[in-house]
């Protein structure tokens, strides 16, 4: 009996040994191509918004023995706004994780839709970054980019990126609301007005900013519709004709990265405005703090916006807000 079990165990060990020693694959060292090659990645995340940059990293290389790179260029389907450029430095990341740039060519020259860098350094490999500043005219359209590189061998390679849809929304950063002064917010103009200017454009005033300290309750920083109950506008004398009712939905910690410029990977895009429900929403938001926010819809339904509170200051009675706005029709 014992001999039988011994034999069985031996057989199993042998099976395992054979299975373990089975040759799986031949390891081969890949052969480096001998021609000019290129590759590209998009570095920016989130929606592509007019006024902001879209950043790419374009890499090109050929064997050292074959030659060197002569030029690199990018052609956008819609000309970029001023500020569009192709880096003339090739970056690598050092041991401390910092990007270090090595100048490889002369500063880029942009002519209409084309941005070109002529190489001045004898190099066979480089990674250049391209910053495309989204122009206003690209809003709601698609943009495509064609990256290309030319080598001293006469070879040319190209790489197409996109199409990328440019968001319809508009953005306005760091508007400082000041209690009693620049406190009338217009979503249509994305601007803050004082009472005199508000009286001149009463129909455009959607919200009033105020800061109050009231014993027994928490009021603090508030955005209130002119048509809201006077209880929420203590001590405010509205200019004549300022009477819009703006529904709003308060939020907390919706730190849109474009507005907050913090590390959070949260982005509000066009679709978010379309999906927002303002039925039964109040027309005031009190006790706003930094990192709070509010979705709002103008009284005429023409615009929807997200107002993000960047900072509040009780001493100066101010609140800094950044806004993303979407035109509904």
């Amino acid at each position, binding site marked *: 009996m014992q001999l039988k079990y011994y034999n069985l165990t031996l057989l199993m060990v042998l099976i395992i040994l054979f299975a373990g020693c089975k040759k799986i694959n031949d390891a081969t060292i890949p052969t480096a191509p001998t021609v000019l090659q290129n590759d590209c990645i998009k570095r920016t995340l989130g929606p592509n918004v007019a006024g902001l940059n879209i950043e790419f990293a374009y890499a090109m290389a050929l064997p050292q023995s074959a030659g060197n790179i002569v030029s690199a260029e990018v052609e956008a389907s819609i000309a970029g706004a001023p500020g569009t450029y192709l880096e003339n430095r090739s970056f690598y990341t050092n041991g401390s994780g910092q990007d270090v740039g090595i100048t490889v060519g002369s500063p880029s020259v942009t002519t209409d839709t084309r941005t070109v860098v002529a190489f001045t350094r004898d190099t066979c490999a480089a990674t250049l970054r391209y910053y495309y500043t989204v122009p206003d005219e690209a809003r709601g359209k698609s943009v495509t980019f064609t990256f290309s590189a030319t080598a001293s061998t006469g070879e040319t390679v190209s790489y197409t990126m996109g199409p990328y849809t440019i968001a319809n929304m508009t953005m306005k950063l760091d508007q400082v609301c000041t209690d009693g002064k620049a406190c009338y917010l217009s979503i249509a103009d994305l601007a803050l007005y004082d009472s005199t200017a508000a009286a001149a454009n009463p129909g455009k005033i959607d919200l009033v900013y105020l800061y109050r300290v009231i014993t027994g309750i928490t009021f603090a920083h508030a955005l209130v519709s002119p048509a809201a109950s006077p209880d929420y506008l203590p001590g405010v004398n509205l200019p004549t004709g300022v009477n819009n009712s703006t529904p709003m939905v*308060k939020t907390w910690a919706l730190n849109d990265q474009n507005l907050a410029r913090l590390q959070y990977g949260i982005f509000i895009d066009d679709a978010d405005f379309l999906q927002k429900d303002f039925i039964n*929403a109040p027309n005031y938001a*009190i006790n706003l703090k930094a990192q709070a926010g509010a979705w709002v819809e103008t009284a005429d339904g023409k615009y929807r916006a997200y107002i993000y509170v960047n900072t509040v200051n009780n001493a100066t009675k101010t609140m800094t807000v950044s806004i993303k706005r979407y035109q509904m029709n």
Partner: protein
Amino acid sequence: MKKYLIIILSLFLLAFALVRCSKDYPVDSDGLLITSRAECYVSNFELLGSDFQTVRSGAAVIDTTALTINATVLYGTDLKNLYPQFTLVTDAKLDPKITGKVDFSDLANPKQYTVISGNRKVEKTYTIFITIQSKP
């Protein structure tokens, strides 16, 4: 050796049969387990605003005898868009279910929620009274 194998195999079969023949635990219409617990009360109550932050100005007062919950909310709270949260005793469930925002603005007709015990034999209906913090 054969004798031992037969005994072990028989024991396994017996254990298997016992497990298969044990009575299934009953579940209710929501697919929740009906247990033997008869306790039936709310242990905690929370109210959140549209920003999912609390709107209470203090702890809610839960009276398990009078079956009332009294909550005072912050000045300016939008009562039409609130998310109530109940903490119940183990195995109990709530009726009606909370599926989203609840309108608490009709203060004259306070909302009522029924707690049903784990054995589904005891039901207690709590009334929620909301008071808004007033300006001094």
